[in-house]
């Protein structure tokens, strides 16, 4: 995102709209290009009285910023707008998350901090060593040099985005080891990441993962998401 300095009247109205705090006033409004993630909030809010906010599509690798930061932009590789996949939302139809397995999503930069891909790379490599399966349709998986190592391609490591998600899957027996590894690598990243875990309910309605979290003393929010089984056709083993 850029400001046309010749048109800007320095009213400052756009400044608080930037989720990254990358806009400041220095005679006129200016955008710190290194911190800007091209989310487009400043432009699409429509608050500029003189229409001096500009978006010009950037070449690779900066072009990643808008794709990962503006959820209205569709990832060409996945055909899905947003930053991840359908994950558990359509599990009643896809059967992607089966009993005995845990899905995990780590959303880097969320909430509201932003992330560089070098932090994603650190954690992805740690997860790979735990033997997780990275979701092949997830946009970050497309940016890995090798999904077996989790290594993210070198040329994008310093690119900053509003947030990005690693999605993976593993047997519930690995959960304790994965969490232990994550706790360690969390000390080494320069951003935040929000952690989610997906679990298919057993036939009696209980979630084995919830029991395991209690046993491990790991708190989870009192609120979360539940797929309610209305999708058709139901996946094998559906309700």
């Amino acid at each position: 995102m850029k400001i046309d300095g010749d048109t800007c009247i320095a009213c400052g109205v756009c400044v608080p709209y930037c989720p990254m705090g990358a806009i400041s006033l220095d005679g006129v409004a200016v955008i710190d290009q290194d911190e800007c993630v091209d989310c487009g909030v400043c432009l699409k809010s429509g608050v500029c009285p003189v229409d001096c906010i500009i978006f010009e599509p950037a070449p690779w690798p900066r072009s990643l910023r808008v794709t990962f930061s503006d959820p209205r932009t569709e990832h060409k590789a996945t055909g899905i707008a947003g930053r991840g996949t359908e994950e558990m939302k359509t599990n009643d139809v896809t059967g992607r998350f089966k009993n005995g397995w845990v899905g995990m999503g780590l959303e880097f930069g969320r909430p509201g901090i932003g992330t560089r891909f070098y932090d994603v790379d650190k954690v992805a490599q740690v997860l790979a060593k735990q033997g997780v399966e990275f979701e092949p349709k997830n946009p970050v998986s497309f940016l890995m040099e090798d999904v077996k190592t989790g290594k993210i391609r070198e040329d994008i490591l310093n690119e900053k985005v509003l947030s990005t998600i690693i999605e993976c899957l593993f047997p519930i027996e690995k959960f304790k080891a994965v969490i232990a590894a994550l706790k360690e690598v969390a000390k080494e990243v320069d951003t935040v990441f929000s952690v989610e875990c997906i679990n298919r309910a057993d036939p009696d309605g209980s979630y084995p993962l919830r029991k395991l979290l209690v046993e491990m003393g790991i708190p989870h929010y009192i609120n979360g998401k539940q797929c309610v089984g209305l999708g058709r056709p139901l996946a094998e083993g559906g309700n």
Partner: protein
Amino acid sequence: MTHSLHRRGTAESLSEDYVLLCLPAIGMNDDGHDPKLQEFLRIALRHDPKNIGGITKGNMYSHKPEEVVAAAHGIVHAVFDNQDTVTQVLRELKEADLGMSVVVSGIFENVDECLEKAGLKHHTANFSLGIWGKTEKLPSNDILEVTTMCGHGLIASNLVKAMVEEIKAGTKTPEAAAKELAPQCACGIFNPARTAKLLVAMAAK
């Protein structure tokens, strides 16, 4: 796409915050799905939603509700502020048998009560284990309670602070401030009714 997960707040505040999502599974039942998503939104609109929206168009604070309905594609959302309404909407969705996947975000215990009354059962859960890493970079918790209602992070902390200052100065009502924040959340999962109450509490500090 975990945008309705990780909403922060107290049990009291979150008990007035439920997001329903409706979507097809790509490549499995997405042929001709738009009318089904439109019907989901029409059902929602009969029950005084606090917001509706879809990523292709925006939400009811940036467009007319009928425009949001007409543009339904991919995934749509509706926000409600009480269990009775969620229960009634779920009953009507079950009756409508749209064949689309439906997800409910909210306090697990409360959502399960709604499901039971509507004759439904939970299938798969997504649990939030919270925020890890360099958490000292985060804004205060009261700001996060507002900003995490847009899971894509499009509502800036500084904008929330600016709204609080305007409420304190008497230049904006909490309701107007919440409605000014709402259009930034493109999907329409932001809850302006809950936000207004949170802003009142922040302005009183």
